């Protein structure tokens, strides 16, 4: 039996960002309970204020690191970085949701605090090695997603997508926690660091557990061949939520994988490299190939999100520091590109006869030049044209693959990028080179235009001057790899 | 091997005792109820069969047994019968964790007058209690009658609501005792020289309300509601099957929940309590039997209290019942819980 643990007071200064988000969530909740009619401006303001304070706390305390709650909770540069990005994404999202939901006649006050809880779950997912915390955080994020997907009044697709996600998400969580069970059975501990550093002779149970665990996460991040839910869920979800799932969801679900990667390399390096790289190869090829034949742009971008999971996974397959850096950078990069492209769709969907079909985009340059150019920037970024973030991400992935001499994977990546050229360019061509008309005039609000512009500038700027973000990523990866 | 056999023997004896109490006494409680009801309404009640109708339950039983076995068309036969089992078995099993008295020694074998003294006794009670919902819901669903379905759904709704209340209500005594074992809770009360009802009057009241609701006693007997729903979910049951439902609901469950209430709030087998000072036992002359008598006495009193309510009060409306549970009782349980957490250290000292 374990000896009695002495009760200690947790070092709360490490969890202040989470606490602020939590308080924000409850403030929103309280407001919703008090007010009979939901005041969306107030809700948005409160949420953004909370997130902003939380973000500022992270930014102003860059050296914050340590562990608290008996080692259940870790704050290190990785968690700070990913949390900051997650907070930025959430704030961005909030600027777009009101108009969208208003147009869809689905204004729910619940949305705001479910979003906050989702964010909270994601923040915890980025900062723990403990299986229980990971499990709970995973469930919190997933359940919030299920709800947010289905929050579209009278829309069957959204319910269908939510249900499919629910089933596959439930499956993935069950499988991941089943793996956690085997790992626990093997080692008697729920801490991944302990589990993966005390490895005995007979590793079968551990391998079984690890495989199940990763299998679960593979479903969550939509890796082929476990991706079935993803396109449906993405297509069915309200478009801003789709963007949020693509960007924030990726960060949240990839974070544990990033944490595991340095731990497995001492004992399972070969197995890790082979399995992950094969899955990565399949993922990017499949995602891009299927995206190529899509007629629905939202679905196409969903498949492109699958493909990007593949790129990130091929960086993770390289169990080295540079791979970790590449994966982190790509995660952040995709977060911005992904949410940007979906937010453009969000704005466009306010048009009355808009159905996200390819032909709807033709001639967008004429009826909405600014949105069209932002869209083009995002497309080029997703494609990986320099000097956008997408390019730097791909270059870093190439670099890590080259370091590990995984040439075949690099070639698969080139091939799949080649395939992806087809559909990203098609959108650019439609927007800029085809003539097309749109009877109803699109009037994005000033803040929407400004933020989309800002986002596209950011996408270019972070790629052109990676120094703006690189130090954080570099430190994060090194800390994660070497331990502190 | 020997010990196993002895164990089994002891277990069997205990089971027989429990069954005797539950089913035998349970059957006779019908008569008690009818008599009490009659006297409350100032009439004699059954007087024909036997002295003051003393054989009436036997006659009733014979009548029920010899009815034809009917089954409504388009129903689901398996679920129809399963419902009965789901109602009867868990309700009776609750008695397995009821401690009737202190530990004693016969022929060198230490025996606790409790069938299974496990450290999660109370959880078991609530687990088994929740099963009752299945019986009710299935009964209504399987018999393919609108009245039955509506009745069973109402009843299930109420049970569901009060299940939550009762769960939260018992947390107070648990905090004070620091245990989930029924036997230990009683012992703690004796050690602390305190019936928890003194510190937990609110919890006790809530518990009693929930008990009435769960057992379908007045004022919460909407599922029966003879006037609107005939007899609710039992409408398509006949013969002994029909007899079993009230037996389970009105007698077995009331008895078992009363017993648990006694365990939680009235110190089980302990005599009358003066808070923090000690116990006064007017029945000292019974010697070692006195705890059992005390226990049975308390249970009986509670049972009679329920009967008294049943035949005195009018019936609430279904929405009133359900909303009371969620809007008044549940918040009160929270309050009680918090309050208990605050003053619990006084009890532990």
């Amino acid at each position, binding site marked *: 039996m374990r000896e009695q643990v002495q009760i200690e007071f947790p070092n709360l200064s490490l969890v202040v960002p989470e606490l602020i988000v939590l308080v924000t969530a409850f403030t929103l909740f309280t407001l919703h309970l008090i007010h009979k009619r939901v005041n969306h401006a107030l809700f948005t303001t409160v949420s953004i204020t909370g997130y902003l304070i939380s973000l500022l706390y992270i930014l102003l305390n860059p050296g914050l690191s340590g562990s608290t709650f008996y080692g259940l909770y870790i704050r290190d540069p990785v968690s700070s970085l990913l949390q900051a990005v997650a907070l930025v994404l959430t704030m961005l999202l909030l600027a777009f949701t009101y108009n969208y939901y208003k147009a869809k006649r689905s204004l729910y006050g619940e949305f705001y605090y479910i979003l906050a809880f989702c964010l909270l779950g994601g923040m915890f997912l980025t900062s723990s090695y403990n299986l229980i915390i990971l499990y709970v955080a995973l469930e919190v994020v997933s359940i919030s997603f299920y709800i947010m997907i289905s929050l579209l009044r009278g829309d069957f697709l959204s319910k269908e997508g939510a249900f499919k996600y629910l089933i596959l998400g439930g499956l993935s969580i069950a499988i991941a926690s089943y793996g956690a069970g085997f790992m626990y059975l093997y080692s008697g501990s729920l801490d991944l660091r302990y589990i993966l550093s005390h490895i005995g002779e007979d590793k079968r149970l551990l391998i079984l557990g690890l495989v199940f665990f990763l299998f679960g996460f593979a479903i969550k991040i939509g890796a082929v061949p476990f991706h079935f839910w993803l396109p449906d869920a993405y297509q069915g979800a309200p478009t801003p939520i789709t963007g949020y799932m693509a960007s924030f969801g990726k960060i949240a679900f990839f974070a544990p994988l990033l944490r595991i990667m340095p731990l497995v390399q001492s004992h399972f390096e070969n197995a890790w490299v082979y399995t992950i790289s094969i899955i990565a190869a399949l993922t990017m090829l499949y995602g891009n190939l299927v995206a190529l034949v899509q007629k629905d742009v939202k679905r196409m971008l969903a498949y492109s999100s699958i493909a990007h999971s593949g790129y990130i996974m091929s960086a993770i397959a390289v169990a080295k520091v540079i791979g970790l850096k590449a994966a982190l950078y790509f995660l952040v990069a995709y977060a911005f590109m992904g949410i940007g492209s979906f937010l453009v769709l969000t704005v466009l969907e306010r048009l009355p006869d808009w159905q996200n079909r390819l032909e709807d985009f033709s001639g967008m340059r004429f009826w909405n030049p600014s949105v069209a150019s932002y869209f083009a920037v995002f497309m080029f970024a997703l494609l990986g*044209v320099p000097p956008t973030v997408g390019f730097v991400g791909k270059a870093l992935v190439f*670099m890590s693959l080259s370091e590990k001499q995984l040439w075949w994977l*690099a070639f698969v990546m*080139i091939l799949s990028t080649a395939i992806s050229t087809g559909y990203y360019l098609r959108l650019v061509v439609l927007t*800029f080179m085809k003539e097309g008309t749109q009877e109803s005039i699109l009037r994005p609000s000033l803040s929407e235009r400004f933020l989309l512009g800002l986002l596209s500038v950011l996408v270019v700027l972070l790629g052109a001057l990676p120094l703006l973000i690189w130090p954080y990523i570099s430190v994060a990866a090194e800390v994660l790899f070497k331990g502190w | 091997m020997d010990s196993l056999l002895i164990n089994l023997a002891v277990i069997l004896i205990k089971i027989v005792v429990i069954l005797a109490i539950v089913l035998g006494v349970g059957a006779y409680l019908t008569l008690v109820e009818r008599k009490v009801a009659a006297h409350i309404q100032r009439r004699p009640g059954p007087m024909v069969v036997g002295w003051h109708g003393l054989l009436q339950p036997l006659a009733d039983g014979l009548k029920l047994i010899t009815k034809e076995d009917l089954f409504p068309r388009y129903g689901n036969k398996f679920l129809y019968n399963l419902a009965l089992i789901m109602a009867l078995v868990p309700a009776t099993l609750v008695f397995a964790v009821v401690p009737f008295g202190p530990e004693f020694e016969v022929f060198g074998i230490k025996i606790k007058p409790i069938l299974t003294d496990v450290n999660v006794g109370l959880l078991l009670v609530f687990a088994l209690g929740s099963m009752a919902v299945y019986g009710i819901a299935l009964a209504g669903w399987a018999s393919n009658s609108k009245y039955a379905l509506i009745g069973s759904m109402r009843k299930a709704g109420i049970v569901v609501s009060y299940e939550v209340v009762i769960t939260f209500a018992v947390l107070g005594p648990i905090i004070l005792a620091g245990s989930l074992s029924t036997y230990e809770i009683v012992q703690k009360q004796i050690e602390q020289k305190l019936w928890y009802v003194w510190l937990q009057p609110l919890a006790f009241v809530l518990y009693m309300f929930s008990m009435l609701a769960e057992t379908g006693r007045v004022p919460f007997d909407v599922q029966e509601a003879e006037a609107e729903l005939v007899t609710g979910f039992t409408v398509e049951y006949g013969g002994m099957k029909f007899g079993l439902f009230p037996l389970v609901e009105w007698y077995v469950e009331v008895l078992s929940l009363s017993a648990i209430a006694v365990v939680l709030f009235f110190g089980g087998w302990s005599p009358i309590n003066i808070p923090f000072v000690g116990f006064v036992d007017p029945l000292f002359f019974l010697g070692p039997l006195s705890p059992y008598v005390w226990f049975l006495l308390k249970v009986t009193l509670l049972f009679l209290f329920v009967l008294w309510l049943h035949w005195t009060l009018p019936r609430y409306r279904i929405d009133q019942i359900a909303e009371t549970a969620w809007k008044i009782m549940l918040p009160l349980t929270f309050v009680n819980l918090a309050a208990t957490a605050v003053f619990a250290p006084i009890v532990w000292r």
Partner: protein
Amino acid sequence: MEKVYATFPYLSISMLIPLIGALVLLKLKETYSKWIALTFSALTFGLSLIVLLNFDFSDTSRVQFYEEYNILPELNIKFSLGLDGLSLLMYMLTTLVSLTAIMWSIRDVQVQRRLKEYYLWFLLTESFLVAVFSSWDLIVFYVFYELVLVPMFFVIGIWGYKLRLYSAYKFFIYIFVSSLFLLLGIVSLAVEHKKQFGTYSFSYFDLMKNHYDLYFGIFLFLLFFIAFAVKTPIVPFHTWLPDAHGEAPTAGSVVLAAILLKMGTYALLRFNVGLFPEVTKLLSPYLVLWGIATTVFASWFTISQNNIKRFVAYSSVSHMGFVVTGMFLLNLSGMKASVTEMFAHGLTSSALFMMAGFIYNRLHTFNMEYLKGSVKFMPLFAVLVVITGFSSMGLPGGSSFWGKFLTIVGAREWSTVWALLVVTGAFFSAIYILYMLKTLYLDTKEESRLIHFTDIRGFKLAAFLSVVLLMPVVGLFPSLIFGFFDHVVKKILLLVGGSP
């Protein structure tokens, strides 16, 4: 290699001027855009002349005007610009041809709408191209190498002719995909540098110190080669070129042919030969043969075209064959020939595309059947075309002469058979130019339809003259051109171990 740091950031400024021009363009009215573009590209050209005058020709192999800005210290990525003789030549060509292209566009019928965007893309192209030719950091080179695609993609796709969308796709996909191999190669070099020296580096000077195993070297060489072979293009990879050049608006074709193709050959010389000398030496015979094959095949393809623009486009391919052949001969004459041919082709191809565009402006067709004798009635234009044609053909005194002649000389140093093969290539290329000139002058058809054409004049004439006048200069005073890159080429040859 030595680096001479700049006293004044000429190169960044000449990169920035077009960018500023682009910004100004965005803010002003559409009607002004052509003049703004013209002004800023003229400014750039002026600045490039100043650079030329300040360049120290005593040792052109030194990298002069060198500037360096750290982008990512951890990976040693530096935004480093600088010019040696070779880059200077390309830089001059860039500024010149960009100016030409913009001058030409001012009166082009194909460019009548969305002028703002049009000139924006051209100014951006100019800026990026300056960076491509002057950057000494491989990743920065790559960034701009690929970035040039975007404006050209839009130019082809929006202002092109009938098949413009198809061509734009094809252009982008071919070059983008092939350059991904280049990216892989570049980062592999950096990783290799880390393995050998302990730090990542993308700097050309650092990477020159790397040593590779033979097979790994060949692998890396091929990664680079694929990208540049598609860009150059060498024959099996050339299929994007006729479409892109054929469907682009005239100015687009001019920039594409005159400068973008040079990016490929310039990079081949600088990176493939410069960074992998051993591998180059090993593979050079095959590459020479490949180059000759490119010339021959491309010449055949050329003759079989009846669209004059595609005709000119294919002729570019055959010229690039000469460039590749000369480069991989790995001797002084070959190298000189190669670089001279690059410059010369920059001049002649832009002139030829302008010719095609001019004829289209008059006749609204590219079909050579309908162009028979069309030049007859425009005397000034005819003269210019003849000069261009003969220059391109390699007639002595024409700009391409030294390229072709020295290639043959260089090939003779290897063996007579090769020299004969090169001569065959030159022969074929002469044939198609002659065929073209014959069609335009000597054939006659429906003359009455052609009589009232006005001759070339104004901005178009200026544009035409700006390149045509340089052709005889190159042809008659080759040492002017050789002076740019003599030392560079010798240095490279020293690396390779060929005969200087």
